[in-house]
């Protein structure tokens, strides 16, 4: 099978999730992504969640063993270049000259301080497309502010409409970081759109993306409720206008829950039969959509009598059998064994170079002619430096040796103890 993005080369400076996952998606579709890290500042994701056990028992090179890093950097080439060193910067600009795009999600101002802002990149390559996947974009008084993914849940307005009806606002939090994830999906697509523009016009462009603004556009209905009608949108738990009930109910088993959505009175009748309470179909507290919305709390108690006596999978199956929308609340751990995802090839096993076996999630889409695929594990730090410098950039062995002596290239992080 062919690959959609074959022939596109990306000089990739992205780190952590939002940026690194965007270029991973492009690499899975066939783009040649060359990740550039420095020994003094490797991608911080290399130090996240390095597996069980005390650090002292860990591998000698933990920076090559982070499951988070290895997830979102597979299929990339990895080179190490100290961009703060003039020779490192020059070498990077040689790579830019041979690339179609440069991607980055540093804090605002870092690219300019490194002397590789968009104008400089354009001098090296007039057609270059640059993607800056910023927290708040460039320009404006808060552009240099820091964020941790979910803090943008708060700043974008999403968090103000997320929460139980009677709780403080709630965010997607540290182990989801929703804004990072969706920004990475969008970042991949908008870069391809800009590359298409370049193919048509011959001109490159700088994509200046604000993750905060992206999330605000994803609550557009709630925004318009306020800007058009002056109605302040509220936290509404799991309630949504088209269903009643629409909520999660406690099941047997540790933290077991089943999500149930009922639309219309006919479905309600089927639901009451399925939970063996047919009399509720005509009970005036619950007989209509509006009545059910008004008695959600009483309804919870009644429904949980039925759900709490079976586990979430049984509850889901019984309700689905009766034609009711129902789904078990799955953990990430359970998803790894999910029959549907596995049947569709969503998970791909890989042997990492240093970290052994890992299960990679593939993509949120299937393309019939050019499917995304995993061809190789994430690079160890500096793994492809020599290859890229010599074969792609045409540096001599002497020049590469010089860069090594100067500390511009390094295969282990500087200032980190190597055991």
């Amino acid at each position, binding site marked *: 099978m062919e690959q959609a993005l074959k022939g596109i080369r990306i000089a990739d400076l992205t780190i952590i999730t939002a940026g690194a996952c965007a270029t991973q998606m492009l690499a899975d579709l066939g783009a040649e992504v060359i990740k550039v890290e420095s020994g003094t500042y490797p991608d911080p994701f290399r130090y996240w969640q390095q597996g*069980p056990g005390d650090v002292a028992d860990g591998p000698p090179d933990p920076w090559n063993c982070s499951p*988070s890093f290895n997830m979102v950097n597979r299929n990339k080439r990895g080179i190490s270049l100290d961009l703060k060193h003039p020779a490192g910067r020059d070498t990077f600009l040689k790579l830019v000259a041979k690339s179609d795009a440069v991607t980055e999600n540093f804090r605002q101002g870092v690219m300019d301080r490194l002397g590789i802002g968009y104008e400089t990149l354009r001098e090296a390559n007039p057609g270059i497309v640059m993607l800056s996947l910023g927290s708040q974009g460039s320009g404006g008084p808060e552009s240099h502010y820091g964020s941790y993914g979910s803090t943008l849940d708060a700043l974008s307005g999403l968090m103000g409409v997320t929460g139980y009806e009677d709780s*403080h606002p709630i965010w997607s939090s*540290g182990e989801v970081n929703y804004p990072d994830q*969706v920004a990475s999906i969008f970042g991949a697509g908008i870069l391809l759109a800009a590359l298409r523009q370049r193919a048509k016009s011959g001109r490159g462009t700088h994509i200046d993306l604000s993750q905060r603004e992206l999330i605000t556009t994803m609550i557009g209905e*709630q925004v318009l409720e306020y800007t058009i009608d002056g109605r302040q949108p509220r936290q509404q738990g799991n309630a949504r*206008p088209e269903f009643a009930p629409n909520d999660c*109910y406690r099941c047997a088993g540790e933290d077991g829950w089943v999500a149930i959505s009922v639309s219309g009175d006919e479905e309600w009748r089927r639901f009451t039969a399925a939970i063996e309470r047919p009399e509720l179909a005509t009970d005036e507290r619950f007989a209509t959509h509006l009545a059910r919305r008004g008695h959600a709390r009483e309804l919870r108690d009644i429904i949980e009598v039925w759900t709490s006596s079976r586990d979430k999978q049984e509850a889901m199956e019984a309700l689905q059998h009766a034609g009711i929308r129902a789904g078990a609340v799955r953990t990430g751990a359970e998803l790894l064994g999910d029959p549907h995802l596995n049947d569709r090839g969503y998970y791909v096993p890989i042997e990492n170079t240093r970290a052994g076996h890992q299960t990679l999630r593939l993509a949120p889409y299937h393309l*019939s002619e050019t499917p995304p695929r995993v061809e190789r594990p994430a690079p160890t730090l500096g793994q492809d430096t020599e290859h890229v410098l010599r074969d792609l950039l045409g540096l001599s062995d002497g020049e590469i040796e010089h860069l090594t002596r100067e500390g511009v290239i390094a295969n282990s992080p500087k200032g980190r103890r190597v055991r």
Partner: protein
Amino acid sequence: MTATAALPLDDLVALELGDTIATAYAGKLLADLGATVIRVDALGGGAFYRSEPLVGRDAEGFKVSAAWLHLNRGKQSITCALDTAGGQEILGRLFASADIVIDGLGLDVLSGWGFSYAQLHESFPRLVVTAITPFGQNGPYRDVQASDLVIGALGGLLNMVGFPEREPLSLGGSQVQYAGGLSAFTAMMAAITYRDHSERGQLIDVSLMETVAFVEWKSGAYYEADGRVRRRVGNHSHWLVLPALDGYVALVYQDQNFPGLQKLTGIEELHDERFATRPGRAKYADEIRELVAPWFAARTKLDIYRDGQSEGIPLGFVATIDDLLNSPQYEARGFWQSLDQPVAVQARYPGLPYHLSGIELPSSSAPLPGAQTGFILRERLGLSPEEIDHYRAEEVI
């Protein structure tokens, strides 16, 4: 492709079928970049035009779907009874004129009208067909009955949001749909990139469940690494939601931010040696929360936001829509757009979350249902006035 083309997608025509937010958002992302996006709507506008939340008033005095106004900006709408033979004739002509189809009706429905993917691919080998469904085109859950809540549950996201002692929670609005729209957009960009040099179209199968699982990938990856099942943690970690004088603040203190938190708040007890290490701070997270809470409760969210950021703490405040309308950051980037819609409202709309240097992107309002019916039939499909009259008489359009 023309050398004079000014916008990334202005040579592309996309056909949008169905009434879901995911398809409409995917279409909007194309329209934002200059594509001609044609919605095929039911006569009178259909379910999407009347979906809640409703806002404003149209010319007939009815409230209009906020999703319609937001997501259909820059699109054209043709109203057409697709369940009639005439409607299906028109649909066939629309397929012939399109580069992309974004389908939210279901490929089975199209197949029943004689437009299976195999047939479309044979007739129009350059066509990119994007189907967005809860679970995708195959697999054991293919026909499971779904809502966004059910998809969020099965995809693993609900498990991570909310309080540990309470029911799992959806993110606000329609995030399952929006995230699915993003997946479709990026897949379409890849398919169009491929088509630009191969002249070959293809089928894109977007599963909302896979999109949710993709967004919520970390808990599975971490579990595989250390065997610990991730669940909702609520307010019991270094990720804290704290009341301020006039709202809420979202605070994260990683190792490198803790000295900043000590300095920002000036709370002496934060220097206790129990809090000196990461494991210590994790163990006593609830105590740290109790210590800092009064300091936050005595200050405004904006003061905390600015002062915290200047101490290098990447905290955020929980913005209301009003806060966003008055945000100096949004103002400086020109995020808000004032638009006159063809309904009796004049309001500010979220603009584009990105700028492309040297390229001015279009900004226009959503059409009324069917606003371009005549234009599309006449100019795009080349129908004669007699043919159009015929369809009108048959109540197809």
